[in-house]
């Protein structure tokens, strides 16, 4: 049984330094990860800081609909407040903070969409083009934690009551009643936590740990309704907000961590109540608590670098705890070079995928093309796997809406071969592709509009509304009341599509090695017809995307330009909605592949499509990072969202100061040449191969899977293979002598 109140684990006379506590907390984290693997099997997503629920805890939802699920303000309020009242306290006396969750309520309720608002007219097109439509999806925008720091839960309650008195229209009543009930439940929960911690302090035999429990009790009583005043109270407040929002629906992202913490740190230092070692301990415990996405450094609204002493403390804390965490350093023209260098040093030292790096120039200039000011664009922070968000100001559906363009290609290809087989050509195919991609984008935008119309009745954002500008003031859900609606539409499969067009152009049209009809027969039979493997190899080794000025590169640029134009065109159809294109497949790379038959780029039926904006494995014999980054820079939609570069790098290349400097220059150049976001895995090839054979040997091996980091052992075998393939590809481990 998983223990969640770890009292009396040590003898009464044992003493603890902060360093010892960190080591023990990390060890416990690895044990908890193994428990999750044992209890839940592989999971191709973020760690979220969750722990396995104790055996004696159970929770049954209260359905509010005949389909057995619950929806709308009433259903969510009733179930969430019930869950909060029942949720036991996770407490580790070694930690500086309490609060871990077991699951997300969204995943316990059954159906996630209220059947009273059907969209069967859209479903056929979603299926045809393999679209992840986002209808009924939640979170994936960034609340403004500073609102919470300023008001505390008591202040938020007062604010709700104030606006309830102003907005008395019947349409607002349900919003205020629900939000007030939720905040009251939170305050009550936190007071209970404070009481329980005081009781646990009495039970704890070790005086050092008992003192920590008493301190935690005081902190929790203080922030139950009051605004946090110290760094410790601030971070405990953040931990609870993570817990509360995750418990509701997996929740949103973090924010500009250094700037969030700096006022509290500086106040504590001035008051003489904290030293740097203790501050780092608190920050390390925050990173241990949850794998939220945070940004570090970058420009403020006026363009001044925000790297501060606290930014360094965060890096040092992350180095100390050295677990999966999602820190992004924003690289810009006035960067603190020392901080940049240090961040790269840590990346190579710990090899845990943190930090990653975002490119300010491309992001800001791109977002400004949507009509926003530079000041606002600079506030749009790295906040998720591949996405940016302005804290408290926008609703986005980031990373929740995806079009499988490889599926669109398949539909276009077979329609052409069915309708005009004798005229088949890449230019004719392009016309079919253009038409079908247009249809896919149109129906996707329609789906987003549908979601925005009904999501309040389906799943209001009862937690995140509280830290957003608009909802409380207007008495409406964030899906109705956000300041900006910057709606994300991502494409997936750009390399699969571009390489397919390139292979057709090169092998069928230029070299005349095979006809369209002959190839179609092979595709239908998954390259199992006569000479199938030979033909597959021939198509596979055509000029590929990321090869460097290849046919594949040219087609990728064309595909991106089309996709971008089509997505942006939807803005005029839906005034008030700003649709932003990007290229990202998240962990859907495998699933998307299962829905696409064999493709002309030599890909077998059901094989994964390419990951995000990355090329397919074996794109070049030398696996040159620079070639890859140049090509990905060429397919940036450039409207403020990203097409990330995912790099797998051998640890040996930065084991000297000179090597680190080379990596600093590489990262800077990748981002200066038009790229938006850079995820880097530092992975020893032999280690990951061994971990793939026996994951239990490396419980602490962390990889940046797509945008998120995860314990390698937690991933499914299929996803582990995907990561291994990427590592092998950049080690030049395409088949011996292979000419890519």
């Amino acid at each position, binding site marked *: 049984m998983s223990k969640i109140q770890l009292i009396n684990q040590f003898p009464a006379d044992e003493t603890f330094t902060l360093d010892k506590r960190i080591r023990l907390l990390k060890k416990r984290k690895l044990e908890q990860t193994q428990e999750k693997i044992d209890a839940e099997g592989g999971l191709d997503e973020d760690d979220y800081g969750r722990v396995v629920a104790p055996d004696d805890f159970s929770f049954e939802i209260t359905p509010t609909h005949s389909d057995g699920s619950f929806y709308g303000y009433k259903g969510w309020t009733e179930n969430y407040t019930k869950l909060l009242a029942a949720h036991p306290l996770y407490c580790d006396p070694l930690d500086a903070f309490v609060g871990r969750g077991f699951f997300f309520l969204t995943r316990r309720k059954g159906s996630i969409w209220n059947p009273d608002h059907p969209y069967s007219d859209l479903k056929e097109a979603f299926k045809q083009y393999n679209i992840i439509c986002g209808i009924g999806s939640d979170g994936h925008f960034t609340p403004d934690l500073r609102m919470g720091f300023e008001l505390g839960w008591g202040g938020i309650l007062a604010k709700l009551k104030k606006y309830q008195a102003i907005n008395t229209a019947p349409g607002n009543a349900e919003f205020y009643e629900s939000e007030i009930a939720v905040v009251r439940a939170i305050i009550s929960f936190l007071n209970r936590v404070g009481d329980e911690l005081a009781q646990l302090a009495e039970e704890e035999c070790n005086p050092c740990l008992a003192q920590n429990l008493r301190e935690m009790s005081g902190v929790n009583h203080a922030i139950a309704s009051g605004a946090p005043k110290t760094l410790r109270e601030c971070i405990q407040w953040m931990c609870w907000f993570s817990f509360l929002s995750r418990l509701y629906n997996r929740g949103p992202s973090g924010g500009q961590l250094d700037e969030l913490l700096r006022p509290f740190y500086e106040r504590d230092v001035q008051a003489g109540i904290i030293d740097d070692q203790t501050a780092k301990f608190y920050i390390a415990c925050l990173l241990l608590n949850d794998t939220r996405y945070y940004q570090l450094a970058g420009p403020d609204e006026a363009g001044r670098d925000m790297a501060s002493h606290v930014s360094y403390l965060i890096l040092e804390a992350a180095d100390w705890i050295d677990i999966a965490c999602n820190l992004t350093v924003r690289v810009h023209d006035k960067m603190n070079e020392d901080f940049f260098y240090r961040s790269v040093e840590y990346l190579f030292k710990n090899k845990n995928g943190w930090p990653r790096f975002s490119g300010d120039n491309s992001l800001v200039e791109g977002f400004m093309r949507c009509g926003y000011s530079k000041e606002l664009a600079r506030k749009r922070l790295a906040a998720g796997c591949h996405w940016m968000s302005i804290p408290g100001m926008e609703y986005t559906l980031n990373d929740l809406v995806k079009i499988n363009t490889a599926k669109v290609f398949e539909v276009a290809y077979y329609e052409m071969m069915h309708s005009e087989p004798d005229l088949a050509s890449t230019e004719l195919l392009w016309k079919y592709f253009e038409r079908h991609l247009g249809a896919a984008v149109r129906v996707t935008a329609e789906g987003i509009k549908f979601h925005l119309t009904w999501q309040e009745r389906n799943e209001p954002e009862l937690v995140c509304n509280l830290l957003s500008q608009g909802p409380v003031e207007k008495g409406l859900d964030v899906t109705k009341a956000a300041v900006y609606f910057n709606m994300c539409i991502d494409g997936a499969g750009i390399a699969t599509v571009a390489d397919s067009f390139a292979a057709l152009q090169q092998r069928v049209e230029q070299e005349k090695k095979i006809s369209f009809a002959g190839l179609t027969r092979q595709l239908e039979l998954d390259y199992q017809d006569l000479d199938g*493997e030979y033909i597959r*190899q021939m198509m596979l080794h055509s000029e590929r995307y990321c090869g460097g000025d290849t046919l594949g590169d040219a087609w990728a640029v064309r595909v991106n330009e089309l996709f971008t134009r089509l997505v942006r065109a939807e803005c005029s159809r839906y005034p008030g909605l700003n649709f932003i294109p990007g290229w990202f497949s998240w962990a859907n790379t495998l699933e998307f592949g299962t829905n696409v038959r064999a493709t002309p780029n030599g890909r077998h039926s059901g094989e994964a499509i390419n990951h995000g904006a990355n090329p397919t494995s074996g794109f070049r014999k030398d696996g*040159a990072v620079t070639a890859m980054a140049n090509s990905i820079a060429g397919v940036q939609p450039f409207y403020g969202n990203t097409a990330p570069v995912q790099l797998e790098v051998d640890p040996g290349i930065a084991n000297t100061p000179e090597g680190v400097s080379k990596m600093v*220059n590489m990262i800077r150049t990748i981002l200066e040449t038009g790229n938006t976001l850079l995820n880097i895995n530092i992975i020893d090839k032999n280690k990951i191969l061994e971990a793939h054979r026996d994951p239990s040997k490396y419980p602490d091996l962390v990889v940046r899977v797509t945008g998120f980091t995860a314990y390698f052992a937690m991933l499914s075998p299929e996803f582990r293979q995907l990561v291994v393939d990427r590592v092998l590809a950049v080690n030049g481990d395409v088949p*011996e002598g292979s000419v890519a």
Partner: protein
Amino acid sequence: MAGMITEIQRFSLNDGPGIRTTVFLKGCNMECLWCHNPETISTNREIHYYENNCIGCYKCVTVCPSKAHKRIGGGHRYFPKLCITCGKCADICYASAMVMSGMVMETGAIMREILQDKAYYAGSGGGLTISGGEVFCQLPLAMELVTACGREDVPVAVETNLAFPFDYMQPLIQKLQLVMCDLKLMDGGLHKKYTGADNALIVDNIHRLSACGVPFIVRTPLVPGITDTEQNISSIAEFLQGLSGLQYYELLNFNPLGASKYKSLGKPNPFQDVRPLPEKRVQELAALAGKAGVPVRCE
């Protein structure tokens, strides 16, 4: 100007300062027994056979004019002695079982590839490295590349054995960012035995290189039992004492990665089972070299 090259490797981090592109030229005037790039020794094109990659399509059997490929007993067999290196099999072998080493490329095409990473050179202090084979075996091509790079502000370094008359090399050397040269053995007799060339010219050229003001690095590959003796390393280090322009003396551990290439070329590999030196031994040799007062680095 066209030249024979084996490979262009971008994002090269170990062939000079910063981020570089390395162009490997084909053809060398020495024949070091331990060479880990055996395909770069001959100036002629060569065929590699990677048996494991063969998918059994037998297309090579149908295109080969010299019957070097045969279908025997339900399997593919390759007879290299019959091969006339026409490359027809490699052209149609998409599975990369038959791979042609050596391609003729024009300066313009090489430059197009080099310039794709220009942004990376500028930021990192990198540029082009011309390697081999031996760069001075294709001096006219190298000269054109250096001139073209000069127009684009791309610095150029070379990796060379310096086994040519200095006056022949000097016009190119004077335009370089850096020269990386090998001095494998200080003993002239052993040098001749293992590389096929006397080292007197090389030793003299290192002196002249030092005098001409171009920064340079001297490197010794640590071949177990041959170049890794304390006497060899310390005598090379002593020779390098006080040479102006020397950036550092570098010890390169033995590279066993050429084994599959020897096999694919059907060439005997005298160092088949030789492994790199233990890290500790490399550090000891570096410390020994350091006693001569020259800066020392090791891989």
